[in-house]
């Protein structure tokens, strides 16, 4: 085994502020502003535009040399003022960059000053989160942004006052269930979850909701901020829910769900992403237990179709030696599915530094090589020696795939060189079924000498 290299060669992760955008974009009428130099916003806009094929506006406090020396308060305030004037948002998510963190700007304090000084700030909610690139990966940025969001907004009703938002979305008054999307998934995945919960008739608050905001329909009027996202009132009301379920929270440090549990005594169940039959069943069982309502019959048939597909595919995929890499929760879900199908995951890797991931992966596939904090040069080395049939992960694995002549099935963010990242469904019985189809086809095409 190689000792950890001093330099990172071809990164398998991104930086913290990137994760925060995925959360802020899932809030209704919310703009994101990075406190730092202009480049961070532009680079991440470009990166996300490539992936989602949508316009992505992220503001910047555009710190210059002066700001770096004397502090960035003036720039940050001007930036907030301009975002309000230009975009008229209900909320602004402010994420710091390495520059702002290193010069030591106190963002919450600057925001308080801004709120006191600026009449325009009156109707705007500010959510600030500390996301220095050097501290951790985009996954952690996502988790802390989601946590800060709930921490900033979730409130019990004032004594004697009513609920913050009246009726739940199915007209019931009893507590809803918080569905926290604990790791990065696609707009199609979120749409699927909402459809499932709606069809089930459950009262829920889903957060963050990127189903429309990162995959907007073409319309006659393009709004300045894309429509959709979780309403702020719903986020406030999350303190009054009867339970919280975090999907994609299997191996994450305490996040929004834990905060709600600690602060408001709302029971919290962290679950894996519903990928693969077992993990899907776990989500369904959890919701049935919480609500006493059985999953609608249509979804039972969907489950049956998934199982039917898995049976159909089992010989095609049997014993296929795979390398799975990318975000921790997605990788675990994919690994579980592969073991259910009789595939043999050989390399289970993530760019994140996460010991709980390594433990969980070892349980799922004890004979595999498990890597955390990995870069692609390390993954490539393993791929070259382990006789891999199929790589599954973000498009950034393409150089390794090409060099080692192994087909790459693109799953997760980023995916810049193929269409459909926004529409790629991997969650639930249906999403898993699509994954099974894609896994089988990738192996068939590879055998036929088709496209990698």
């Amino acid at each position, binding site marked *: 085994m190689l000792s950890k290299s001093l330099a990172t060669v071809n990164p398998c992760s991104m930086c913290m502020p990137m994760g925060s955008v995925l959360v802020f974009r899932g809030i209704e009428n919310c703009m994101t502003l990075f406190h730092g130099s202009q*480049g961070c916003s532009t680079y991440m806009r470009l990166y996300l535009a490539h992936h989602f094929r949508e316009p992505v506006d992220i503001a910047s406090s555009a710190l210059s040399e002066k700001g770096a020396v004397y502090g960035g308060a003036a720039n940050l305030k001007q930036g907030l003022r301009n975002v309000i004037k230009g975009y008229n948002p209900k909320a602004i998510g402010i994420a710091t960059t390495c520059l702002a963190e290193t010069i030591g700007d106190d963002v919450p304090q600057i925001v308080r000053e801004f709120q006191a000084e600026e009449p325009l700030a009156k109707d705007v909610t500010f959510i600030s989160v500390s996301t220095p690139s050097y501290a951790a990966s985009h996954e952690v940025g996502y988790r802390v942004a989601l946590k800060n969001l709930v921490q900033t907004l979730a409130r019990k009703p004032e004594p004697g006052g009513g609920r913050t938002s009246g009726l739940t979305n199915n007209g019931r008054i009893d507590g809803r269930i918080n569905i926290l999307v604990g790791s990065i998934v696609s707009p199609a995945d979120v749409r699927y979850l909402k459809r499932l919960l709606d069809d089930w008739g459950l009262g829920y608050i889903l957060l963050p909701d990127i189903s429309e905001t990162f995959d907007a329909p073409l*319309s006659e009027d393009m709004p300045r901020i894309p429509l959709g996202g979780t309403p702020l009132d719903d986020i406030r009301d999350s303190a009054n829910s009867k339970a919280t379920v975090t999907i994609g929270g299997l191996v994450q440090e305490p996040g929004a769900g834990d905060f709600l549990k600690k602060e408001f005594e709302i029971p919290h169940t962290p679950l894996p992403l519903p990928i693969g039959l077992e993990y899907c069943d776990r989500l369904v069982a959890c919701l049935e237990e919480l609500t006493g309502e059985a999953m609608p019959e249509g979804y039972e048939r969907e489950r049956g179709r998934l199982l039917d597909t898995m049976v159909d595919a089992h010989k095609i995929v049997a014993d296929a030696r795979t390398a799975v890499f990318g975000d921790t929760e997605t990788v675990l879900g994919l690994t579980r599915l592969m073991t259910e199908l009789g595939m043999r995951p050989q390399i289970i890797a993530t760019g994140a530094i996460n010991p709980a991931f390594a433990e969980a992966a070892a349980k799922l596939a004890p004979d595999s090589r498990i890597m955390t904090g990995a870069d692609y040069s390390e993954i490539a080395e393993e791929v070259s020696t382990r006789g891999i049939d199929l790589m599954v992960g973000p498009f950034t694995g393409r150089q390794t795939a090409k060099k080692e002549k192994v087909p790459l099935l693109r799953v997760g963010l980023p995916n810049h060189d193929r269409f459909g990242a926004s529409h790629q469904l991997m969650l639930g019985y249906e999403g898993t079924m699509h994954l099974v189809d894609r896994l089988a086809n990738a192996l068939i095409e590879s055998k036929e000498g088709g496209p990698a």
Partner: protein
Amino acid sequence: MIVKIFEGREGHIQQKGDDCLPLSCNNDSLAGAVSQRACVYSGARVVLNPLTDALHLVHGPIGCAAYTWDIRGASSSGPDLYRNSFSTDMKELDVVFGGEKKLAAALRELADRFHPPAIFVYSTCIVGIIGDDLGTVCKKAAEELGIPVLPVKSEGFRGNKNEGYKAACNALFELIGTRDYTPKSRYSINLLGEYNVAGDVWSVKPFFEEMGIEVVATLTGDARVAEIQRAHAARLNLVQCSGSMTYLAKKMEEKYAIPYKRISFFGLQDMASALRTAAEFFDSPEMKEKAEEIIVRETARVTPRIERHHARVSGKKAAIYMGGAAKAVSLVRAFQEMGMDVVIIGTQTGDRDDYEKIAYIVKDGTVIIDDANPLELKELLIKQGADLLVAGVKERFLAYKLGIAFCDFNHDRTISFEGFDGMVNFAREVDITINSPVWQLPVKRESPIAGRSDLTISAGVEDVIQEPCHS
């Protein structure tokens, strides 16, 4: 003022014909305005990254390296080391205690693993703040490793992309003149500000060679370190992307007495005049004759293919938003050749001279904009009735959402636009996007039950508008 969204942006937008002061430009972007610009580091990266056999090490946290890894269309005819992403991946402790030791160790390790002929080390924002002495570390490493190790002072916050161009040019300047060379031809040139996006240079270089000219080095498209090192041996510098490379051309003129000429390889007229410029400089009658022969031959070859498209796009309105001004100016001429009107033209990093030149060549009524943002672009595209936007990926989806055709003319484009064949590609690109049937599809569906009073469900069924959004 044609659009007014942000206070403080007034001086950056004007309409030709307005009686107004010179355009404000080349200053810090307005906070909160969502500038399309990147940073100093990005400027340096754009210029240096196409150097194919060099190792590009980003000294900083992982983000700066992650978002710039293999995202550009600059092609290589050989080595592919430049397609990798190298980073010192600074962590919290490096920020607290300084990253010099980690950098020095990383340089040793990478040189040992990849044997590059040279290493460029880019500094990022926090390196500037914590004060790592890049110069000293690089100097020591160069001595130890026996290869050039060049610091690129590209802390993101120290200005805009233009500062990054300069930082890159300074690094290149250090490399130039470090290898002896006598060109094989008495006529020799360098191509500056040519990045071989989508293989552009391969449809340009053969014509110079046909004229008996040796291209010593291309800076930096498909270049090797050794070529840059002997670039001082050329007799003439042809500068295409003037924003990024004029600075280097001037430095080379000063030190090596190599004169420079501005040219462009985009558009039939510009391509022809680039060949003529070289021939005239060397003042060789045979070469001039050869140039004319090439121009006549190639123009005749491609014209029928281009004209097919011209007929389909003539009279349409184009908007241009480019990183640098040189490309923007070339595009104006190209659209004139195609019979199209330019209604908006803007750049991220143009300077006063650039905007004067632009103002001179565009028609009255054209909006000129510096350092634009999505809200201004959106309003301008609608108000000016643009049929097409030529820009980069960030702007692509804005255009599409507005029902406006789009052509990618940035560093991540994958279709060659330079030289004679490039113009055929460009004309086709413009044609297929402007004349795509997708713009004729109704954005609003016509409902058979719209307006029927006996039906109570009317949600989502409003007045039917048959006109497509792209009119």
